[in-house]
């Protein structure tokens, strides 16, 4: 494994220079904070504050129901391990509009930084490959970010990108925790775009 030198704050701007072109769902904690700050909680973003493990299943439900849209799941290593079998569910359905990006800091940052499986022996890109996801990649240095971006643009979907990052903290952005508002904002904006187009 290459040395991990990537700071998570540098990841999303390079991987998603045009975040408005995706429907984005994040897992809880760090991934939610980073994406909320980066997009300023745009209406094409929905973030979790709990329900650990929900991000990939929500992304799959969106991708299958909105096949003309690109769907991105942005989540953490602990979150994705909670429902790791959902990668098999994704592979069986093979949605060609689903991108999964795991920001893998190897720890449970929200609960005190306890070391997780991926800081020990677990390799999430290999688990995704084993689940049957056709395109998988791991990056861990700033120099690899552009290759990560090209992977998201060019590799056959569904695709899984594991972004190994240092233990640097996520954004301290204070996002809206109200899921009722979050649902209505996302859903109404999506349906308004459908009516307009």
């Amino acid at each position: 494994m290459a040395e991990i030198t990537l700071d998570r704050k540098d990841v999303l701007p390079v991987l998603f220079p045009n975040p408005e072109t995706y429907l984005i769902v994040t897992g809880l904690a760090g991934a939610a904070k980073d994406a909320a700050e980066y997009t300023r909680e745009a209406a094409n973003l929905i973030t979790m504050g709990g329900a650990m493990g929900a991000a990939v299943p929500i992304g799959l439900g969106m991708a299958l129901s909105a096949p003309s849209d690109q769907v991105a799941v942005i989540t953490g290593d602990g979150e994705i391990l909670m429902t790791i079998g959902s990668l098999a569910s994704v592979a069986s359905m093979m949605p060609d509009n689903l991108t999964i990006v795991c920001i893998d800091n190897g720890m449970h940052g929200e609960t005190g930084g306890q070391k997780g499986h991926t800081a020990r022996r677990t390799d999430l890109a290999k688990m995704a490959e084993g689940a049957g996801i056709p395109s998988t990649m791991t990056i861990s240095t700033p120099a690899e970010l552009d290759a990560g971006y090209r992977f998201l643009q060019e590799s056959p979907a569904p695709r899984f990108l594991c972004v190994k990052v240092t233990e640097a903290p996520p954004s301290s952005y204070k996002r809206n925790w109200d899921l009722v508002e979050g649902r209505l904002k996302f859903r109404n904006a999506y349906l308004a775009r459908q009516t307009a187009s």
Partner: protein
Amino acid sequence: MADERNDDWPKLVFDRLVEHGVTLFAHVPDFGNDKIVSMADAHNETRSVLLSNEAEGVGLCVGADLVGSRAVLLMQSSGVGNVPNMLSLITGGRFPLLTIVTMRGDYGEQNPWQYPMGQAVQPVLEAMGLQVIRVDRHDELDQAVVSAINAAFVAGQGIALVLSQKFLGAKSF
């Protein structure tokens, strides 16, 4: 009045769901939902989605709702034990949810492993804020299905339609 058994009940359930715009049939396989899943695969406007764990199904239904679509979660009673924390999404976000639970571990059950979760189905679902509509008789199915669909997708409630073993018939060993 004797309840007239309708062995074609899965078709009634499937037809009602399709009539009301359900397109995704998320499920963990069970004898009780097998025919509905086959119908979802055969119909050109619906798809079945095989899950690894029932918890994923709650997220899948939420994802469908966020883009204006309708999904249903089909699971055996034992699967109810896998979903409670995910139901935070439904009560916390006021998402609609329709799940159809095919029972084990109640009337006529011969497998002792099925009883603990089977007997906990209704209290677990209700503890997480879902409403339970239980079906014991074939003559009450149609109205129960339509009621469950309307409560979920028109009124935006979290609804579990529970098909009991009195309704389904108990599996013999």
